[in-house]
């Protein structure tokens, strides 16, 4: 039951690829319009002009900009991300080290948010207008309005500083004394994850709720819900089985869009919790003008977003029988 034509898919893939190329070009220009360069941090005042030239040569800064650009685009096509001048290591290595950490932190908050959010949204949407809806909805908006680092500070203050229950930094015990088994490592990560997870999820779930609530509300007026009710099914069954299933479709899209915002959260939250992931990496790279790292970090995120958006289209068609892509093309 493929509802997507091969041609349509192919077209979407090509467009997505081109989008990525344009994003990369844009970034190349933007990053280089920032004043300063990583080279400043490598030049020693006692260096002669020749020595500075040599360093510039090594990092390819003497080439005309267009040639640097062409080289950069070609390298990326072949998966060569270059070397980082500040970390003096291959950029790809750096990415492989950092990306999983961000994925663990934000993957788990993502899961929590997208379980709690739609559930609450379902409930509120179904009972829209009730007093419960009003009070829960407005308090969740209050949560949504909190600066993430501020609420994180409050949690650290409470659970770490005051109660001493949870650690406020890192993903692992730095120098573990316990035996290194799958179980102990899991437990250790969860222990360290607790506080950041709590802080991010505290705000994060609202996003999903905000999509689910109106969507749920819309389907209450649909014929099949009416029909299900008429059949004498319990309110609960109708809500869960018939209404919620259909109301979830926009949430799925929202989830993908939400992915794009993960990195925003990461930038701040990773800093608060000394969680050395992509968010910290990208900010430091921009601030220290480490172009190879900044480019690669932006690229990885952009690629993730573009691919996920492509993927949403596919998910969409499977979830919603009314949407058909590729017809009439």
């Amino acid at each position, binding site marked *: 039951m493929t509802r997507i034509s091969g041609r349509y898919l192919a077209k979407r893939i090509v*467009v*997505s690829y081109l*989008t*990525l190329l*344009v*994003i990369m070009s*844009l*970034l190349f220009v*933007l*990053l280089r*319009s*920032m*004043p300063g360069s990583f080279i400043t941090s490598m030049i020693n005042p006692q260096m002669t002009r020749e020595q500075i030239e040599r360093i510039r040569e090594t990092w390819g800064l003497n080439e005309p900009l267009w040639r640097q650009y062409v080289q950069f685009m070609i390298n990326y096509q072949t998966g060569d991300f270059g070397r980082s001048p500040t970390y003096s290591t291959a950029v790809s290595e750096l990415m492989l080290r950092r990306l999983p950490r961000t994925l663990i932190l934000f993957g788990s908050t993502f899961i929590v948010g997208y379980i709690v959010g739609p559930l609450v949204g379902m409930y509120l949407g179904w009972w*829209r*207008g009730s007093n419960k809806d*009003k009070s829960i*909805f*407005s308090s969740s*908006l*209050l949560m*949504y*309005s*909190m*600066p*993430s*680092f*501020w*609420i994180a*500070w*409050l949690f*650290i*203050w409470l659970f770490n*500083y005051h109660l001493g229950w949870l650690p406020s930094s890192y993903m692992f015990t730095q120098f573990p004394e316990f035996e290194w088994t799958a179980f102990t490592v899991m437990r250790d990560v969860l222990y360290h994850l607790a506080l950041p997870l709590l802080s991010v999820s505290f705000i994060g779930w609202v996003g999903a709720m905000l999509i689910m609530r*109106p969507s749920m*509300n*819309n389907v209450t*007026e649909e014929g099949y819900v009416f029909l299900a009710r008429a059949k004498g099914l319990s309110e609960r069954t109708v809500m869960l089985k018939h209404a919620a299933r259909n109301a979830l479709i926009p949430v799925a899209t929202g989830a993908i*869009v939400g992915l*794009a*915002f993960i*990195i*925003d959260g990461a*930038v*701040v939250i990773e*800093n608060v919790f000394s969680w050395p992931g992509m968010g910290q990496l*990208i*900010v430091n790279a*921009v*601030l220290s003008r480490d172009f190879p790292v*900044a480019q690669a*970090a*932006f690229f990885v*995120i*952009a690629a993730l*977003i*573009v691919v996920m*958006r492509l993927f949403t289209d596919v998910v969409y068609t499977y979830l919603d029988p009314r949407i058909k892509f590729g017809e009439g093309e």
Partner: protein
Amino acid sequence: MATERSDDRSTLEAARKRWEPRFERLRSGWSRFTEHRMGVVGLFIFVVYVLWALFPGVFAPHSTQWVAYLGEPPFDARLSAEQIETLPHPPAFGDPFFAPLGTNSDGQGVLTLLIYSAYNAMYIGLAAGLLSTLVGVPLGLISGFYGDTWIDETIQRFVDIMYGLPFLPFLIVLVAIRGMSTTNIIIGIAVTSWLNNCIVIRGETLSLKERSYVESAKVAGASDTRIIFRHIMPNVLPLSFVYLAQDAAGAILAQASLAYLGLADFTSLSWGIMLRNIQNSGYVFQAWWWLIPPGLALMLLAAAFYFIGFSMEDVTNPQQ
């Protein structure tokens, strides 16, 4: 486009005729809005902040020049070492000085700073919200109206591209290029936050243009511009106000995040900067009176925008 009419009275009449239903709509909208307690609360907070922003001197206990122990300038002494040691000072009500929310480590009153900072937050929220609406709405309208043509395609691909750029890191790059002034931060936020408006308005326009009155306007030979701005735009305006409110809230929080990362204009008075300063000086876990108020103020303003926005959504899109 509007044809000239010589008769003043008929102009007035026509105007009244034209605007009457709109006023009516507004009035009924307002009464529906006031049914939402959330919206009213939001509006109340908003008004309080507007007053703070416009007349900080009336509400604040001191001027921003005020220093604990010394009072208002010109000072007749310097702070003694013992006095400096007590800073940041917890809330004090007259003894040794009056500072209901305590002071920061420089001896400035937290409440005073809080009130004087409302202007900055208001400015950033409204300006960024307005800017992203001004960019997003017209593009969304055009894109939707010319749905499935090359114009739509171009705009949508552009949106795709912008979507691929992560908001905060991209903002950091923009701020790095253009410098850390409040104006640049507003522009940076607007550049990255119009996308949602554009997409939503486009969807709305797509469905609106199928409506019969748009069809009839087309048949009557109205130009595209006229149809877009005269017939479709008024119908998407309420929705765009909803998004303006949300963008404003988003902008305020984004500025706070930038401030946390040390990328906001620190010479201005803002809540984000107050939080940044508490971190700079290292009193995050020592001075709750300095930590909690700016965060609450930020939260309440952002929430006020959300409250107003979501209540308006209900008004414009009545479900029950």
